[in-house]
């Protein structure tokens, strides 16, 4: 071992500590960088040489940079981001929906509903008098207006969800192309054996975190370090390529998600998009349906009672509200459907599918109960009648043709007051009893307390109360679940932070440690230099 060897050792020490100081400053600089993982220098002794008297050390080697990182926690974090994103969307949507039904501030239907029936009380007490009738008509218009406002708000929320899905899709595609670009950089760096692409890894991880807040996906990493991202069993990112996620309108006017040519909507359950899709389904299949059902039953029951009475102008069989029609849709190439209501009293207010298993054999299925309402052999031009409805199909029917009939779809859209002349309001139950007979008005008032078979034998108010308590409990459950997911996310983030985060105190100590070591190494070189001087001066 020579003096020059000492100079070499000093050089390695200077170099290694310099690199370590570099890393400390990089850590301090990135203390606030999201997703950054603390780095540390990997130091080792240089390969020793065999000298006189044994192995001689040759100084320190800087082997590389290690990132403090734990895969297991990262996986948990991704999952938690997905749950969190979903509950975030649900809470946001339900909080808006609950404002539509905010009976705590009299925003809902019940005030105008009560006003309407109170107006009937006034007509019952003064059947021959005009002002009360005018008030009744006004309150009927107010009832129509609040129903329409609520329907409009519900539709607005669905539209907002669709826009939001579009918007998030754009963000997902940006993230996907970033991940693909980072994949490329990472494999290039790591293939060159120049070490681990720590910062790129962190950036990619950060994009994956953000992505998991939006949509649920699975990943796997190949041997080169590429991460493949799959959503709905289709590749979103594969190596340095992406398949753009796109949205298309379906027949209901709702956005559906397409990836790599496949409709993946049904596979998305988590992330913000998963939450939005769920909320949209619930609004349309549950809330909107129930709301329309109560409006349809108000129209139906009020009209059935009203038609039995006589107006001051001796007319009868008048509808109070404009009777609703049937909404139809055909899933058939060559056939069209027309549906009419023949007897309102027989209506179930359910929705039906008419399916042809061959060109002349049909069966009608009730969507709400799942039971078969009618079935038979179809002869072209025949009328299919069931539960107060007549169905006529024209054109060529082929096997597997399907038709949809619903009394609810457009019921609120077409909701209006049919009576314009107050004298046509039928308070009297007989022609002879005019003008002061009020038996029909009393029957109308009783209707408000009656159990309605179309509403599962509940009164209007009880059925409506069911809708309110359902939205309320959904919202409150969404809030609970959001705060649970949020806490869990914080817990896992903290565990990640505990492993990967930067501590200023720690870095301060490291800074001091490496600074001193650097100073010592420099001193060592100086000493070696002095030793050389001593020898040269001999």
């Amino acid at each position: 071992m020579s003096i020059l060897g000492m100079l070499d050792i000093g050089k390695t020490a200077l170099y290694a500590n310099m690199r370590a100081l570099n890393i400390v400053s990089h850590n301090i600089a990135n203390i606030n960088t999201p997703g950054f993982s603390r780095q540390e220098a990997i130091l080792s002794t240089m390969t020793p040489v065999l000298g006189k008297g044994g192995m001689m050390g040759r100084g320190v080697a800087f082997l590389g940079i290690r990132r403090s990182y734990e895969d297991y926690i990262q996986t948990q974090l991704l999952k938690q981001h997905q749950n969190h994103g979903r509950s975030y969307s649900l809470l946001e949507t339900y909080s808006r929906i609950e404002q539509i039904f905010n009976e705590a501030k009299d925003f809902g239907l019940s005030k105008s509903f009560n006003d309407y029936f109170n107006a009937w009380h006034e007509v019952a007490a003064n059947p021959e008098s005009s002002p009360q009738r005018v008030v009744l008509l006004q309150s009927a218009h107010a009832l129509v207006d609040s129903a329409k406002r609520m329907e409009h708000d519900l539709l607005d929320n669905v539209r907002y969800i669709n826009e939001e899905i579009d918007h998030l899709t754009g963000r997902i595609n940006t993230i996907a192309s970033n991940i693909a670009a980072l994949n490329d950089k990472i494999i290039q760096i790591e293939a060159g054996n120049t070490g681990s692409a720590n910062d790129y890894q962190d950036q990619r991880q950060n994009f994956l975190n953000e992505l998991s807040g939006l949509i649920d996906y699975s990943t796997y990493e190949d041997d080169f370090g590429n991460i493949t991202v799959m959503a709905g069993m289709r590749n979103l990112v594969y190596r340095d390529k992406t398949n753009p996620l796109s949205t298309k309108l379906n027949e209901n006017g709702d956005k559906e998600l397409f990836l790599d040519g496949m409709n993946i909507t049904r596979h998305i359950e988590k992330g913000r998009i998963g939450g939005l899709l769920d909320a949209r389904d619930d609004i349309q299949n549950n809330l909107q349906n129930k709301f329309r059902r109560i409006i349809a039953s108000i129209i139906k029951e009020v009209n059935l009672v009203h038609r039995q009475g006589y107006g001051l102008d001796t007319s009868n069989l008048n509808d109070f509200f404009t009777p609703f029609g049937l909404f139809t849709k055909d899933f058939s190439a060559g056939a069209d459907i027309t549906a009419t209501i023949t007897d309102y009293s027989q209506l179930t207010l359910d929705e039906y599918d008419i399916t042809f298993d061959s060109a002349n054999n049909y069966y009608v299925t009730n969507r709400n109960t799942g039971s078969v309402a009618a079935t038979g052999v179809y002869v072209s031009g025949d009328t299919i009648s069931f539960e107060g409805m007549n169905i006529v199909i024209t054109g060529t029917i082929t096997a597997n043709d399907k038709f949809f009939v619903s009394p609810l779809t457009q019921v609120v859209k077409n909701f209006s007051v049919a009576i314009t002349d107050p004298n046509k309001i039928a308070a009297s139950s007989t022609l002879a009893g005019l003008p002061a007979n009020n038996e029909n008005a009393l029957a109308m008032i009783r209707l408000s307390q009656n159990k309605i078979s179309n509403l599962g034998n509940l009164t209007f108010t009880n059925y409506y109360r069911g809708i309110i308590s359902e939205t309320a409990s959904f919202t409150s459950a969404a809030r609970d679940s959001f705060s649970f997911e949020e806490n869990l996310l914080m817990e896992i983030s903290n565990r990640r932070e505990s492993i990967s985060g930067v501590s200023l105190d720690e870095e301060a100590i490291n800074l001091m440690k490496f600074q001193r070591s650097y100073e010592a190494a420099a001193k060592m070189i100086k000493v070696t230099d002095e030793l050389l001087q001593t020898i040269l001066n001999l």
Partner: protein
Amino acid sequence: MRVTSFMIYDQFIRSLQRNLTNLSESNEKLATGRKINKPSDDVIGITRSLDYKLSINLNNQYKKNIDEAVSHLSFTEMTISSVSDTLNRIKELTLIGVSDNTDAIGRQSIASEVAQLRDHLLSLSNSKFRDRYMFSGYRTDTQSFNPTTYDFQGDDGYINVLIDKESTVPINTPGTHVFGYTGVSEQIMLNNGRYVHYIPGASTNITVEIRDTDNVTVLDTFNFSNVMQMTDILTNALNSNNVTRVNALLSPFERAFTNVINHQAYAGAILNRIDNQTASNEDSTLNLKTVLSNTEDVDLAEIISTIAKNETAIAALRQSSVKQISQSLFDFL
């Protein structure tokens, strides 16, 4: 567990946020005075409060109906009481009319008073309350009794209003019940030996036959169906000094008077029943308002102390965070 700077910052921010959220929720409750500001604040509470509000609303409507019924029924009761006073006076005059001490001139002067009482009865029977002929049944736009023939022109309809969920009260009385005459088939012998037969006909029409002492020969016959017609016949009989007719009318007036008294009592009874209903209605409204307030309204003392607690927590948090965040090992290097 290794604690990093970010964890400390993050924890402060979250705790501060949580406390501020609580504070703003409490402030909203204080500002609105309500515990339930949106349905999800209290899922059970919102449906209960909806129920209470509906019941209060209905009670208010029943109260309005009751007020309507009371004003109608009081009017009817007052009218009927006038009718009974009038009939009582006619009864007295009839008794004077049949007396042997009254002569033809005396009967004529009685007749002129009876004629006035007849017109008074007619105007009572055609009473209007708020533009509504009160005794016409459902035909409230038609005079109850024809002013010349005194025939009933209304029908038998009762206008009912709901005074609570189950029960209704009629706010009117059809004219036939108060002014109409309902007699039974009977015969009486007058003190001059003649017989009087009362023969009920269709509806409330009564035919009166005055027969000779042999109870076979019909000397005189007339018919009526209500008190106005009776009073009219009485007027004519007094004018023409037909004491037998006057005599024959004594018993019908007696019966008509009893009938009116009964109706007066009946109207009073309904008013009493409504009074009870009003009391229970108001009682129940008060109860409902109390429970509604318990469900919806905020407990002020509680909310103010919650706010104070929150404010203290926030102040403490700020103080401790300033100390912890502002220092690191770098300060000592």
